[in-house]
């Protein structure tokens, strides 16, 4: 590997997070003028690798070489000085400042007396933008630009430091097809100048359009690197999945009851596209899909957090209008949020968090029935095996798994008949995961219908009675239990409908 054509080389990079081996001895390299696509499922370690290379996260072990020189990246600033430009998945532009100011943020041209050299700032920004034949006025505010233009400004910013290595983290996730085309043009231009580009994506269709080589990560390990000619979709999908399904899912089958929820033509502009679904008593409906496919948006729309543009929701056969969470709760819905902190109040006691969605039921003439509150709290702490020092322990002092159980207890306490679980096992330890699954079994036995959104394919496949796959705001496939393999699910999630 002594070829000097390698702009960047990473050897056996290792990174551990508590409970997750995010990167397991990953090798990676990038040649001059090359687009190297990095593929993998959610949580495969793509973003972690990008963050290590851009100096945002320190690596635990391994070596990184730039132009065959070993470097120890200490900060994003350090990486920038070495010519590594990073464009983040969430854009990091300051909305209220102009294009030029954003491009030169942190390295403003100055006059000799130390004041800002405004005219040079705009002139240089103009020149940089012109270089890529990007027609954006450097005086314009970021907030006035569309997503693609912001993306281009972000890339220009990354290149303003003469970056030779550009890291793009899912740059097209928010772009339309036309905008995507423009971005690819720019990428081709950069390639001609010898810039090496690492392109993180989970859209397989983009691979033949831009890549020279493809690497696939899975569970923190690199599965392989292929030249683009050998990287057909089937091969890539096989490399991306391949996780074994083992017997730790205590799924119990419950006879399905009547229909509790029906959704017809649910549309939220630019997010959800005419979705139809049916949920029965005692059923677990799995919703698979990649991040950004619209799964959480679906949950939020059903629960009245986001406004619905068109479509009808039927609960127990009656058309209902849900325009706020409290209406949803009155109708018997419960929503375990994707991010625990969105659904819990960390500074309040375990008890208060448990009864938060049932306040109305626990009050007589506005007065809280303290004894009932206490007995409910004790009941759920016991039933869900929540480890807490007491009823009045502050929630933030509990472990992640126990917090998740409190979040679950909140919806049990409010007697929800339709539960939406968004990533119910994210970030909790294995023991708690199994308890969450057992609890789901108990719920369906009581006739509750569960919509389970999860990025963990084995989990979805093992627990669901039926699986809907989402792709870019639409359902691309529906499978009965046991009908689909992981490859099938991933193909529908990545490519869309057949």
């Amino acid at each position: 590997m002594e070829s000097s054509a390698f702009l960047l080389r990473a050897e056996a990079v290792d990174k551990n997070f508590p409970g997750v081996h995010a990167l397991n001895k990953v090798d990676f390299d990038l040649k001059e003028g090359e687009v190297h696509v990095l593929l993998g499922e959610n949580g495969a370690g793509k973003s972690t690798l990008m963050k290590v290379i851009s100096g945002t996260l320190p690596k635990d072990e391994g070596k990184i070489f730039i132009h065959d020189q070993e470097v120890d990246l200490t900060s994003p600033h350090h990486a920038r000085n070495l010519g590594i430009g990073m464009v983040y998945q969430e854009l990091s532009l300051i909305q209220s400042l102009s294009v030029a100011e954003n491009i030169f943020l942190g390295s403003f041209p100055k006059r000799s007396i130390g004041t800002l050299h405004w005219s040079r700032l705009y002139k240089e920004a103009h020149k940089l933008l012109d270089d890529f034949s990007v027609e954006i006025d450097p005086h314009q505010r970021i907030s006035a630009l569309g997503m693609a233009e912001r993306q281009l400004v972000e890339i220009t910013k990354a290149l303003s430091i003469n970056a030779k290595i550009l890291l793009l983290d899912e740059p097209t996730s928010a772009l339309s097809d036309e905008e995507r085309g423009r971005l690819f043009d720019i990428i081709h231009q950069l390639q001609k100048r010898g810039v090496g580009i690492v392109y993180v994506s989970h859209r397989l269709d983009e691979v033949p359009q831009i890549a020279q080589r493809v690497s696939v990560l899975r569970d923190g390990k690199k599965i392989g690197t292929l030249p683009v000619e050998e990287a057909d979709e089937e091969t890539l999908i096989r490399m991306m999945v391949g996780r074994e399904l083992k017997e730790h899912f205590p799924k119990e089958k419950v006879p399905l009851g009547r229909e509790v929820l029906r959704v017809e033509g649910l549309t939220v502009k630019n997010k959800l596209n005419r979705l139809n679904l049916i949920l029965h008593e005692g059923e677990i409906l799995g919703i698979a899909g990649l991040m950004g496919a619209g799964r959480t948006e679906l949950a939020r729309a059903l629960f009245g957090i986001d406004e619905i543009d068109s479509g009808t929701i039927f609960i127990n056969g009656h058309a209902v209008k849900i325009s706020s969470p409290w209406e949803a709760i009155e109708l018997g819905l419960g929503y375990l949020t994707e991010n625990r902190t969105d659904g819990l109040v960390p500074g309040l006691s375990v008890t208060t968090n448990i009864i938060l969605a049932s306040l109305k039921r626990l009050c007589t003439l506005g007065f809280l029935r303290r004894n009932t509150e206490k007995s409910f709290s004790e009941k759920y702490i016991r039933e869900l095996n929540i480890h807490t020092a007491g009823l009045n322990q502050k929630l933030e002092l509990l472990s992640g798994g126990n917090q998740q159980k409190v979040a679950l207890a909140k919806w049990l306490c409010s007697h929800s008949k339709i539960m939406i679980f968004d990533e119910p096992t994210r970030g909790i330890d294995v023991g708690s995961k199994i308890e969450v699954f057992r609890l789901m079994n108990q719920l369906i036995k009581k006739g509750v219908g569960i919509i389970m959104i999860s990025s963990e394919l084995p989990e979805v496949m093992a627990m669901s009675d039926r699986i809907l796959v989402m792709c870019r705001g639409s359902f691309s496939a529906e499978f009965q239990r046991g009908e689909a393999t992981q490859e099938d699910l991933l193909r529908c999630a990545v490519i869309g409908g057949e």
Partner: protein
Amino acid sequence: MFQIKKVTEQSDDRSSAIFWPIKNVRFPETGWSVLLRGGPIIALLFLLIYFSLATPHFGTLSNLKNIAQQNAYLVILAIGQTLVITGAGIDLSVGAVMAVSASVMAVLATQELSILGMTIGPVNVWLAMLIGLVVGTIAGSLNGLVVAKGRIPDFVATLGMMEAARGAALLVTGGLPVPSHLTATELKGYLPEPIIWMGGSEIFGIPTGPLIAIATVIIGWIIMSQTGLGRAIFAVGGNKEAARVSGIKVDRIKIATYTIMGLMAAVAGIVLTGRMNSANALMATGVELKCIAAVVIGGTNLFGGEGTIIGTLIGAIIMGALGNGLNLLNVSAFWQRVIMGIVIIVVVVFDQWRRRRFGA
């Protein structure tokens, strides 16, 4: 993410093992730590002991009654403010709302008015008081409506109300104290007896102002700890999004806290007017900051989600005792303000340190 491995019963024990030590991390129960965990009450005890030793008059019954009488209105305001701040709001308009409701009450009770050609004339004093309370309540609910429905920061909405209400008070009184000798001749410059009684009389040796203040403390305590509204206020202040997702009507809770605050401000207005035997448009200037200081000294989190009524009561007493004690020590009024400012900061810094060290 990571693969689910074979689960044994051990994993349960492990998750509990991860958790239990957190509970056990406690400072050893020495006398000092018990005392330190008490919070602002330590600062109060310290002040009381110091002033009692430094000036013999401080600890006498009549002086303590005096402190209570002088600061009753502050306690009432601070209780309302505790509700607002716990709900992650802040009300800067309390002084102005106090002035406008007191002015309306005093003018109605003492003057002849001509409205639409009819002469209405000093109205029944109880009715005047009721109308004063209604004015305060409406001003408060307006604050709440603007904050919740107009979606603007609490600070800005109540800043606007502060100016507008002060102006309204000037309009109502014409800039003159009420009653003045010009307008209330048959009362010889006195307000009707019931109003004066509210602020400056005694029942069984207990001054009335402080009695009313204690009543609001009890009401505040009941709201915060015994009602669904109280839980909702904490939840909204602690995590607005989580409260909303849990089916709490966040807007209504916000409006409720500001409405209660407005009512409390009107009550405080009556008490202060009674004690001073006068209402005027510029009364109670700057009390909004004083009552916020009392709330903060009492350990309420300015960002919401945490707060106690008892803490606020202690905070208000600290403010009152400090002013009185410094007076007795003949400290100049200018220095008093400097010292007051330092005490606010020292108490809160100490409280924050104490929380980090020992947990709340």
